[in-house]
């Protein structure tokens, strides 16, 4: 028919594109956020130049504290990230997995303290508490997978998501029921760990250095496990496509359990690190670090293992420095109360600006789109 007749070249009419309401609001938020951050920064910097800011030592301490907290978030974030990569949903109960390790670790630490080992043999004690915390968190994570998530693997995501909220709620109040609602305070760190340490002329708190080192070592170990071993390969294959992985002879159930176990173990380590940093734990301890760790996972790009650590440290710094550097400059009173607001705002802004994270998502075939 008209196959060979060249269609008349015509310039397409300029389309009339109106900005939708949602886009409009997003732009207002984007511009507003940038404006607020800029004004805050300028305000703070002028104040600092005027000599009104914290001392150099205070800055150093804040930054190191940010790093320490951030690396702890990073460890928890790994659990979110890995489970998201494999099953494609946010395991809201992961914060409680972390809390369980910190909570049961307390009882180990307390008995060691009563037996006098805590002071006489601090590193050994910490190691024992670490093992207890890891074992608890791993066990809780595996149990949760077995009891709740396994049966729902083919259900709509909404169902899994709601289940994980239920599990999170249940675990919180189960721990409240078992161990009471009071804050449990870990015994004070022995002197060699509560002092300061000189590294390259930088004086930092020993406990914070310990936290950063432990987190970094765990991180590297996990990275090696995922990228260098057969198990890790199975894990990545399952994350990419469960059915094909199963066809290739990979035991999908076992691999998913392993994902939860590894995520749980990392959360357990984070539980001890939390105790080293803050000492006090109770049944609700998992909630805020849980959400912040999820934020960290999103910041770094969900499913991305180095991304989780990167996101964690970034969030830690943002959280410790943000109130002082940005909010204070805006003339907001009582900025130290707003740390959590800063963290949540980071989550909101991240998802508004770049939901795929700073280092990019690594999701399976089914989860992309």
């Amino acid at each position: 028919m008209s196959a060979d007749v060249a269609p008349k070249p015509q310039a397409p009419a300029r389309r009339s594109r109106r900005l939708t309401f949602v886009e409009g609001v997003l732009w207002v938020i984007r511009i507003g956020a940038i404006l607020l951050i800029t004004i805050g920064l300028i305000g703070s910097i002028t104040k600092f130049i005027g000599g009104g800011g914290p001392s150099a030592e205070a800055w150093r301490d804040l930054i190191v504290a940010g790093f320490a907290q951030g690396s702890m978030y990073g460890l928890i974030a790994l659990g979110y990230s890995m489970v998201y990569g494999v099953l494609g949903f946010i395991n809201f109960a992961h914060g409680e997995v972390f809390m369980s390790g910190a909570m049961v670790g307390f009882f180990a630490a307390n008995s060691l303290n009563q037996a006098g080992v805590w002071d006489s043999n601090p590193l050994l004690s910490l190691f024992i508490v670490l093992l207890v915390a890891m074992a608890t968190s791993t066990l809780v994570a595996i149990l949760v997978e077995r009891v709740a998530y396994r049966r729902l693997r083919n259900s709509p995501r909404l169902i899994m998501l709601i289940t994980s909220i239920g599990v999170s709620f249940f675990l919180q109040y189960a721990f409240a029921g078992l161990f009471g609602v009071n804050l449990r305070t870990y015994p004070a760190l022995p002197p060699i760990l509560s002092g300061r340490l000189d590294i390259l002329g930088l004086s930092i708190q020993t406990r914070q250095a310990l936290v950063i080192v432990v987190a970094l070592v765990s991180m590297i170990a996990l990275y090696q496990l995922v990228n260098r071993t057969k198990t890790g390969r199975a894990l990545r294959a399952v994350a990419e496509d469960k059915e094909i992985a199963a066809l290739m002879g990979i035991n999908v159930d076992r691999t998913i359990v392993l994902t939860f176990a590894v995520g749980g173990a990392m959360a357990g380590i984070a539980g001890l690190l939390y105790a080293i940093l803050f000492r006090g734990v109770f049944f609700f301890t998992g909630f805020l670090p849980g959400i912040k760790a999820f934020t960290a996972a999103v910041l770094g790009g969900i499913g991305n293992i180095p991304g989780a650590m990167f996101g964690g440290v970034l969030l830690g710094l943002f959280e410790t420095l943000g109130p002082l550097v940005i909010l204070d400059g805006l003339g907001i009173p009582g900025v130290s109360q707003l740390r959590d607001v800063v963290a949540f705002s980071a989550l909101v802004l991240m998802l508004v600006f770049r939901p795929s994270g700073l280092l990019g998502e690594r999701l399976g075939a089914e989860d992309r789109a």
Partner: protein
Amino acid sequence: MTAILEVRDLKKIFGGVAALDGVDLHVDEREIVSVIGPNGAGKTSLFNVISGLFPPDGGTISFKGEDIAGLQPNQITERGLARTFQNVKLFPNLTVLENVMVGQHCRNKSGAWDAILQTPRFKREEKEIEEKAKDILSFFGTRLSGYRHNQPAFALSYANRRRLEIARAMATEPDLLLLDEPTAGMNPRETTELTELIGRLRSDRGFTVALIEHDMKLVGDVSDRVVVLDHGVKLIEGDYKTVSTDDAVIEAYLGRPADRDQEASA
């Protein structure tokens, strides 16, 4: 004849691989155009970009004289371009009738207040929507009528799901219908039935149709014009006879010339 859809130099790159590498395509009013090509030639990508699921990385898409590249899928549907999917995408828990009623969404106006206050406009519109949905379903004979109206879509057979998807696309009152492999998974009898149906889409209902298809008999029976894609570029276009005897097409599509007889008899 005026072109209703005109695609020029369309490019789409997925992760460094060009799924569409400068495709030109035009569809005239009341024409039936088939897009064929081997697997991975970029046919579905072409439909996905045209219907707005992915923004193009280059080139223009002009629909009824307006550039629609980069619009949201719902805006494109509103402008009169509807599609079906290769792997049927219905609303499985809605009934057959509801699926078609949802299709009319962008052609109606009544909002939340109308529904809560039961305004006359709302009542009139609801009645029209239902009647129109039934009318569209009657296009498929008894297949989707009567008691089927109130069955959930997931209870339908595969062939009926495909029909329902076409019905739902028809409900958006499109000027151009894009059908992505309408006969995939159908048996020969159902394919024959659908061939006739596609002809009737134009003759009875006045739709312009562009379709992706692997069944060469259907392509030969219904198409005014056939466009062959391979590796994201247009190989050739023309009527079925010209295309099916073109050596380049045969090589791209069938591999070796010796395969031709088998394919034709299948």
